[in-house]
Each structure stands twice: as C-alpha cells, then as structure tokens.
C-alpha cells in the first residue's frame, strides 16, 4: 500500500497532467539553461559538475545541484575544443586551439598536468580526446591529421615530464617550466636587424603568452608533459580528426580496446589499441558524406554525424555501412553532435534543431534547441537514479539541460522499491515539474479577466495536495472572491492522541500581474537560467508553497511525519485578503486545532545568508475624496469664483506631515516602542551585510511611516479645467506598540479636523479601506528554536534575525484566531524581484528551503512525541 503511494508521488513528474500514451513521443522539456558569453564547443559532466569548454579560453564549471557557476578553469589560451572526463582518476582532460591538453583535478578544480602534443603548435588545434581507463591512455586527435597518445600508466614512461620529481605522479609541485626553444619564424626579428631568433622577440600582441606554460593566473600544474615522437600516427586521416570515441570490450576479446576516429576526409576509422603500442588501423569506412563531426557507439554499431546532414550507421561486426539516416534534408546543415541513451539517438544540427531517432530510425521528436548552431551535447544522469538529461551547447552561448523520459525498458516491478529509495533526488525534479505547472496558471487576483485562472489554480493545487498524500478541499470565501485551498497531511498517530502537534502553513496562490515588458522570458512559463527559476509567483508565493508541501510529502512517504501539517492557501492575498478572515472563522472546525503557524512569504535581506523574519509592520490604507458637487469647470470662465477641491486636497495632505517629514497626527508616535541597545547592535550588524545604513533598517522595520500614493482628478486633465472631484490614497505603516484601530481613527479624525480648519464649502469623504496589524514573533519559544536549528543545520550558518517593512494581514490575524505563534521563514534572496519583472528564486534556495521545512517538521514531530506538554 505504501509503495503505491510513493509510486504515485514519483509519477507526479510524468503523466498526471499529460496524456500517458503520448508521453513517450514528446520532445524533452527544457529543465534549465545556463548562459556563457561565447560559443559552447564542448561539454563534460562529473557527479558534481558540468564542465563547459567555450570559445573563450576558460572552462566553466557549473555546480550540478544548484546550477550556479562554481569556478572557471583558467590556463588555455585558445578555444576549448574537446573535454573528456576520466571517472577513475577524477580528472578532466581539455584540449584546445592553443595546442595543449590540460588535465584538471575534478575534486580540487586545479590543474594537474599540461600535456603538449608532439610538434607542439605544429600539431595545430586539438579537436578530439578519448580516455581509455583500462590502458590509462589519453588519445588526442589533431589538426595536422596525426593521432597521438600519452600513457599515464607506467610511471617510468613519463617521458618528457618536466618536473622536479622523478615522475609526474610523484611530482611535488615544484615543477620548473622548461625554457622553450626560439622559433625560426614566430621569434624572429626584422631582417634589417640581422639578429637570430630568440624568445624575447615579442612579435605577438604583448599581453598574450601562448606557450604551454601560460597559466593565466591559475596555480601551476604538477608537471609539464610532452607526447614523444614515437606516440604519433602521422596522417591517421587526411583531414582534421574531429571526433573520436572509445570502445572497451565487446569485440573478439573482453579486454580489447578499440578507438573510432572520424575526420574531415570523410572517413571513419577503427583502431586497435594496446598498452603503449601504436594503434593499429583495423578498418576504414569511407562515408562520402562530408566531414565526420561526431561519433557515438552502441554495442557493435557506430553512428557518425556528417557534414551533409546525415547520420551514417556502420556495423562493426561485418564492417559494412548499414544505412544513412537523413537528419537534415537541406544541404549544408551539418550534424555536429550526437548523443545516445538506450536506443534513442539525439542528433544536434547546425540549424539549432535536435532530433531524436528510435531504434528503427524513426524521428520521434524534433525541436529547436538553440538559436544558431548546436555544437555539443552529452547525456547525464541525475545522481544515482536513472533520471537522464540531455545537455546541449550552442553558439548562442547557452547550455541547455533537457529532461528526458526515464529509461522505459526498466523492469517495472523493480520500480516501486527504486522509487522509494530514490525519492529524495527524484522529488526535486518532481517539485520543479509541479512548480512549472503551477506557475503556468496566471492566477492574477486583481484582474477580473483572470478570475477563472485563479479558480483553476486552486483546483490544481488541491489536486496536487491530494497527489502528495494530503486530504484536500476547496473552501469558499465571500461571493466573487477566490476560494481557499485546504490540504491536511496527517502525521503518524502518536502514542497519546493529544500529543500530536499541528502546524498550519499559510500561503497564497494568487500573484500580481506580469505585463511582458521587462521580462526575459514568458512570465507564466517556468524558465531555468544559471541556477535560477524565473516566472511570476516563483518566489511570491508558489515556489515556497510547493517546497513546503513536498517537504511534508517527503516525510509522509518515509513514515517520518509525526505532526499534522495543514496548508491553508488563499487566493486574494495580493488584493488585501478580502474574505479570508471570515472564511477561516467559518471553517474553523475543518481546519482544526493549530499549535503553530508557518509562513514563507518574504526574502532574505541579502544574497548569501539565510534569515528568519520576526517582525512585520502593520498598515492602514485610507482613501480621501474632496468634491464640490459641481461638474468640471473652465478655469478661464470660473477660475477665482469657486473654491477648488484640488487646492483643498493639497492643503489637507500638507497637514499630515511637517517640514521634517514627521507625521502630524496627534499622538502618532506616543506608543512607538523605544529602540533597545540590543536592537541597535543588531541593525549595525545587518547593515554591514546589506551594505546599507543601520538607520535605514530601523526606519524601514521599526518606525512608523506615512505615504501619499496618488492624487486623482476628475475630468479631462487638461490645463484649462478645474476638476470637480479629487481622490487621494494615503497609507500609514504602523509598528509595535501602536494600536491599529486607534491609529486608523486618529488619522480620520485628524483629516476631518484639518479640513474643518480650511472652512471650505467642499465636501470631504474619508474611508479606511483595509488594515493589517503589525506583528512581532516570539524569539525564545520552542518553535522558533526548532526553525532556527533547521536553518542552521541545512545551511551550515546561523540565520540572521530580520524584520520586514511590509505587512501580511493574515499573520497577526491567524495568531489571534488560533492563539498560537507564527513563524516566518523567508525562502528566496533579496534579488528575487518579487512583484517585478524577472521574478525568480534560486534552485538552491528552493531545494534547501524544502529541506529546512522538512527538518523543522521532523524536529517538532520528535518533540511532540517526547513532551506532549510543550
């Protein structure tokens, strides 16, 4: 029974919202894109990183989990044309137009060796690489048509190693770069100088050192190695050796290692390789389809991507061409990269298309992956589970990560248990999939045109809660307002009934409008770029809601949920939560008893340090109208004969503050709490982090303020008209211990009294439109400490305690209603752009946000079991 539940959870990623039958034939969905400035020529991936070799000399290292740029490997002085990852050594090989191969440690991300080919720059660009683990040999395909190799196996064979140690492997890092020999041309002097060439000639642009010993500021490698003359097959092809792939085993003998190379001479060649031996050419296929740009091998079949837009399929066993798959009909649209997973072949072309071919060579998908040329591709798996991704790189400077369907020929009976064990990593994919769906529903509560979308968002969310294992329902509020979504995850029944704690998570599924101006992608389609997810609502508040729901589901699925988690998600938050209070009171039975409230609807104060919010300001929104009960008048005819409402309004508003911007409402500051020394100290510390001033923090967080938002006039708004009616919007932010009702009343009273002093014949109307009380959290109770601990464990740093200048009316309301404390966990960073174009949340913050909530729920669950009295 339990397995069924988790299987349902896992399947959330695939077929709940799409037709199950069609799922297999869909083009993969774009999971994320990373942006480099220049053409992406080569890709490789380790467990932790995605490596990207580009036109710009550096190798970019992206963290696979957060999809943020981790490091740039510096050293090459030309485009990085090929990358190869050696899992066994934890090495990355990179080859470049600068005629060097560089070897990097993928654990420390530092250089290990620099390997020069035979003839150094005479070998030209190094187009291709293949690592043979069983031979501990790297093969290099060169522009000068030679095939070269270097054996890292036998340490005595470290020929040409230039290092202080005896062998490269034992080198102590004190390597001395050899002095290079002067070149007869590149280091020559003008003839009239009659001077022999030397290395100081400095003919190139002065800033550039293109010798293998250029490290461009990076730490030096352990040793400089050179490929000896005997490790070279000259004229291995007649053209550039563009690509190579290694075949280990599977041939006549299990230990056999074969290398397949493809060249600009239209040939694919098979070489038999042995330890330190010259590769022996076994066979050459003439493809007659232009240059061979890419190769993949499956079993005994070679697939070669060709210049004329075809993929040649060659059989190794019989040494015959099997067939030609036409990927691109138009001539000149070359197939530049191939990747294969299972029997699916992905062909990447110069027109930006990627096509998928099945075992029977049917084209099962075709999509525009890049604007421009797709130059490189690899297949990777998310951690240990078999969730595959295709990563493509293009000359548009983008690296795109495409989510592929899980390998389908997996034994389905094994899947249940597998899903259980791999739920953790898998669920992050599911979370993103769900967020994608959620964001795609434009639930803009302020626009009547989106009323139905809001309802659909509520329905979707209810379904999602149900799928995740909660009991879920829609609760109507007042007529014409969006419903509440209630979802209850029931924790395991505790030994004593009353000890099971119940946490209420409050959030909102509505969003503010997102006109497309200023957005880099469709606001209602989740787009992942450089470790961030973009879309309206991702940080406010759809992302945090789903992170919390998935956290509860995760605990539920692993039988670790010992509290009840009640999700109460409204649809009118961005419009002042109209009807929320009433609906909550009406459905209090359904919601049940609550021990603590958790809200995640704000952001950190900076980029890197997690925060917990413990205070909010309150707000009183007030509208003012002054009218003379007459139509709009011509100022040339009537001017001077009427008392103008707009002048009254200006006078009236002027009475709200004095010249020092102090609010003049009587008694306004009387009950504002005095700032303590501890508080001052805190603001100083936080100001250092945000780079602002402590006084700015305290003004925003703990001092009241008054704002005039707008003055609106009736009539045509031209320069000869006296408008008859003037409306203004004013708000006051209030702080502890100002009393909301008292402040609202004194505001109205002040306006009315001031107006009376004007002795105007016009009419004043003042109305308080909506209000929210301030809120201060309890920093010393068990709940806060549990949350604090969860953040600290997950992020490894103590969270900052911050306040917010804004107001969330429901927080103080819920506290009062359920007589318990609220906790506010900001999930995103200060740069998340909530309410602005390009709203975003980082993958890292979303994932860790989920884990924090999971830890928090687990902690309070334990506590609940141990000491029911808390």
């Amino acid at each position, binding site marked *: 029974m339990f397995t069924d539940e988790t299987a349902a959870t896992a399947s959330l990623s695939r077929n709940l919202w799409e037709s199950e039958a069609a799922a297999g034939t869909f083009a993969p969905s774009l999971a994320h894109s990373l942006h480099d400035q220049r053409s992406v020529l080569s890709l490789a991936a380790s467990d932790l990183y995605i490596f990207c070799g580009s036109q710009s000399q550096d190798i970019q290292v992206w963290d696979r989990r957060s999809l943020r740029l981790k490091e740039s490997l510096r050293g090459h002085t030309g485009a990085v044309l090929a990358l190869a990852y050696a899992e066994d050594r934890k090495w990355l090989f990179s080859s470049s137009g600068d005629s060097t191969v560089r070897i990097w440690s993928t654990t420390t991300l530092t250089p290990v060796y620099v390997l020069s080919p035979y003839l150094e720059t005479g070998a030209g660009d190094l187009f291709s690489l293949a690592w043979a683990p069983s031979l501990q040999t790297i093969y290099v395909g060169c522009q000068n048509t030679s095939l070269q190799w270097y054996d890292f196996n036998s340490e005595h064979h470290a020929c040409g190693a230039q290092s202080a140690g005896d062998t490269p492997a034992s080198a102590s890092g004190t390597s001395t770069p050899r002095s290079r020999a002067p070149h007869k*041309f590149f280091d020559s002097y003008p003839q009239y100088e009659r001077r022999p060439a030397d290395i100081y000639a400095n003919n*190139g642009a002065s800033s550039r050192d*293109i010798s293998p010993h250029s490290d461009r500021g990076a730490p030096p490698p352990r040793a400089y190695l050179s490929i000896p003359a005997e490790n070279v097959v000259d004229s291995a092809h007649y053209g550039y050796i563009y690509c190579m792939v290694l075949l280990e085993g599977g041939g006549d003998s299990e230990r056999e290692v074969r290398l397949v190379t493809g060249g600009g001479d*239209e040939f694919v060649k098979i070489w038999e390789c042995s330890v330190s031996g010259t590769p022996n050419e076994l066979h050459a296929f003439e493809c007659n389809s232009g240059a061979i740009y890419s190769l993949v091998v499956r079993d005994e079949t070679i697939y070669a991507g060709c210049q004329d837009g075809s993929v040649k399929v060659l059989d190794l066993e019989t040494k015959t061409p099997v067939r030609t798959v036409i990927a691109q009909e138009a001539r000149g649209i070359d197939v530049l990269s191939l990747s294969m997973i299972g029997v699916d072949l992905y062909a990447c072309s110069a027109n930006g298309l990627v096509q998928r071919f099945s075992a029977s060579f049917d084209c099962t998908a075709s999509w525009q992956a890049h604007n421009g040329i797709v130059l490189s591709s690899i297949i990777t798996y998310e951690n240990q589970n078999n969730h595959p991704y295709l990563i493509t790189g293009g000359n548009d400077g983008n690296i795109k990560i495409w989510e592929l369907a899980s390998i389908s020929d997996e034994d389905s009976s094994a899947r249940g248990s597998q899903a259980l064990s791999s739920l953790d990593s898998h669920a992050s994919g599911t979370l993103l999939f769900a967020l994608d769906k959620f964001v795609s529903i434009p639930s803009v509560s302020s626009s009547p045109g989106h009323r139905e979308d809001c309802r659909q968002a509520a329905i979707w969310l209810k379904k999602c809660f149900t799928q995740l294992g909660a009991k879920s329902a829609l609760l109507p509020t007042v007529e014409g307002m969006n419903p509440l979504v209630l979802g209850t995850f029931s924790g395991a029944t505790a030994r004593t009934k009353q000890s099971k704690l119940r946490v209420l998570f409050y959030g909102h599924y509505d969003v503010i409008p997102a006109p497309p101006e200023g957005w880099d992608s469709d606001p209602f389609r989740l787009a992942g770029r450089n470790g961030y997810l973009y879309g309206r609502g991702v940080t406010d508040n759809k992302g945090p809601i789903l992170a919390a729901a998935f956290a509860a589901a995760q605990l539920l699925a692993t039988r670790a949920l010992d509290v009840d988690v009640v999700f109460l998600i409204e649809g009118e938050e961005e419009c002042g939560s109209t009807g929320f209070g009433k609906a909550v009171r009406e459905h209090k039975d359904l919601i049940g008893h609550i021990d603590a409230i958790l809200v995640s609807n704000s952001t950190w104060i900076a980029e890197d340090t997690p925060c917990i919010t413990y205070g909010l300001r309150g707000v009183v929104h007030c509208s003012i109208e002054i009218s003379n009960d007459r139509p709009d008048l011509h100022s040339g005819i009537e001017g001077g004969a009427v008392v103008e409402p707009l002048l009254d309004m200006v006078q009236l508003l002027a009475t709200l503050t004095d010249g020092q911007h102090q609010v003049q409402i009587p008694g306004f500051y009387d009950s504002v709490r005095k700032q303590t020394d501890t508080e001052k100290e805190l603001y100083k510390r936080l100001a250092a982090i945000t780079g602002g001033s402590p006084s700015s923090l305290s003004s925003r967080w703990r001092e009241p303020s008054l704002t005039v938002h707008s003055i609106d006039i009736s009539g045509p708004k031209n320069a000869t008209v006296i408008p008859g009616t003037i409306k203004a919007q004013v708000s006051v932010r209030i702080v502890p211990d100002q009393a909301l009702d008292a402040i609202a009343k004194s505001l109205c009273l002040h306006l009315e009294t001031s107006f009376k002093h004007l002795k105007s014949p016009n009419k004043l109307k003042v109305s308080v439109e909506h209000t929210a009380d301030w809120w201060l959290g309890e920093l010393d109770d068990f709940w806060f400490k549990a949350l604090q601990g969860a953040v600290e464990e997950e992020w490894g740093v103590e969270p900052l305690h911050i306040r917010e200048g804004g107001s969330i009316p429901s927080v103080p309301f819920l506290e009062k209603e359920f007589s318990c404390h609220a906790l506010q966990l900001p999930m995103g960073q200060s740069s998340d752009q909530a309410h602005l174009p390009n709203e975003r949340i980082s993958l890292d913050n979303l994932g860790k946000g989920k884990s924090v909530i999971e830890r928090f729920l687990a902690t309070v669950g334990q506590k609940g079991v141990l000491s029911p009295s808390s």
Partner: protein
Amino acid sequence: MCRFVIYKGTSPVQLSHLLTRPIHSIINQAFDSRLRLDRRRPMNGDGFGVGWYDSVHDEELGPQPCIFTSVTPAWNNINLTRLAEKIKSPLVFGHVRATTAGSLSLDNCHPFKHGKLMFMHNGGIAEWERIKRNVQKGLPDFAFAMVQGNTDSEWAFAVFLSKLPDANAQTFTVQVLRQAMLDTIAAVNGYADAAGITEPSLMNFCVTDGDTVVATRYISSDKDEAASLWFSSGTTFSEDADGGHYRMSKADKRENIIMIASEPLTFERADWMEIKTNTMVVITPRFNVLQIPIIDKFSAPGTVRGTEFAHEKGFLNPRKALSSLVNSSGH
C-alpha cells in the same frame, strides 16, 4: 623565391585584411620576409599579383577570376592599397615576386589564369633550361599557346592544364584537380630524370577553380625541406590588438576561413600550422582541409630533412644563378 597567400572563406574578405593590414601581411613579407634567408637582397620587390573571384556570381561577368598585377614593389603601389580597401572576395590568391634572373614583366607576374582556373608557384624548377624544350614538346597546342611569359612557373601551369581531362570544363571535381597536380609534379620529375638532373626542384604550387584549392609543399628530394608553407583555419580573422595583431578565433567546430601562406600573416604561434614537406593541401568546396602526403621516391617518412637547400635557393649564389637559374625567373 617569392611569397604567396591564399584565402578561402564562407564570406568574402576585404583584401586589405590579407594584403595590407596584418602585421606580417603579404606586403610586409615583400620587404621583411622572415623565412627566406636572402641576405644580399632580401626583398620580394619585383612586382606582385592579386587574383580574386566575385562574391556573387554574375552571368555577364562570368566565373573567371580577375587578376591585378604590377611590376612595381607591392609596398609602394598606391593602386594596390586602394583596391585592397574596396574589394571583397571569398577566394583570393596574392603573390609577391622576387625575380632571381630574367625579365621584370607583367607577363611574368603570378597568378596566371586559364578560364576559371588560377595558378601560382613559389620555388623553382632545377636546371629549367635543360628540360624546357621537352616540356614544351609534350604540351597540347592550347596549353602551349596559353603561355605568355617566360617563366618555369607559367610553363608548369601549362603542364597542369595538359593533365586535366578538359581544361575548359565548367566544373572540376576535387579528385580531378588533385590528380592533375600529382601528375604535374610527376611529369616535371620525369623530365628532370630523363635529363639526368639531380638538383632538387622546389614545387610549391597552388591552383584553384574558384571552389577547390589544391596547394603543394614539395621538393624533389628526400633529404631536404621544401620552401615554407603554412596554413590557418577558424571562424573569424580579426584585429585583436592595434598594430596589425590579427587573431584567428574558433567559435565552431567547422572552418569558415582557411588561409594558406608562404609565411604566417601574424606571429600568433597557435594560429598557424606548418604544412609538412611533400604534402598536398586541399581545401574542399565544403571547407574541409585535407593534408595528403605525396608518395613517390622522394617521400621520406620519419627522416629529418635539412633546411639548407631551400635557404640556399633563397640565398642568391651568383655562380648557381648563372648555371641553373637563368630564365627560371618566376618564383
């Protein structure tokens, strides 16, 4: 010994990027050649020639290249500078000449053309006067009649034309041009053998039909290096730093620009590759660069060739010039 440069690109190049602007442009090579050790007279100042094809095919203009030659030194020709600033072409041959003997004449300036085909040479055929009559005898009338000047180079072009199945064809396959080039070298070697000539000939030839380029770095010797020949390929060739410091960049696996030159046009070591001696370089119409060893009795894989001979030919030895270089004025 002359200097030449070839450009083939997917998009037309402004001639100045080859001829005048790069730090070691062909014009600079004309007065400051670094790979020619002719200390007595180090100039390639005996005229020059530029040949180029149209960027867009025009029926009325036809497919043949346009050639501009002059007997003035390339660095001192204001017309060349002016033309180079205003002409763009997807396929260019440029040549600066150093006559070692013989006439300074427009007819003797490279490149030469016949129909769509264009040809130039850097080197010299050893003891040319001893085989000249036999070479001419072996030519069909059309090839014999084509020759206007009196250089070994132009006669070598005539031999090349005679090796084509149809020298006036509208199109040539890569294979046909490759084979004709091999046949030309073999024929010249045959005449030299027959005459008992042992001195090596330097045969860096290049030919194009406007689509394919075939060039050779060749010497009829298994001990010596041939005259220098380099190439560079990539996606853009642009000025990276002031002072003509051009740089080849690679934004694609494929090549958009391929240049072949007697000497690199810049001092960017990683941008230039030396072509091995006795190798044929082919730029296919689809921008693949093939480097095909020329296998004959002069192939010597694995041996280190001496560089003295080529230098010696550049170094003007007066006695040698009298005995062997009379009339062989083309290079």
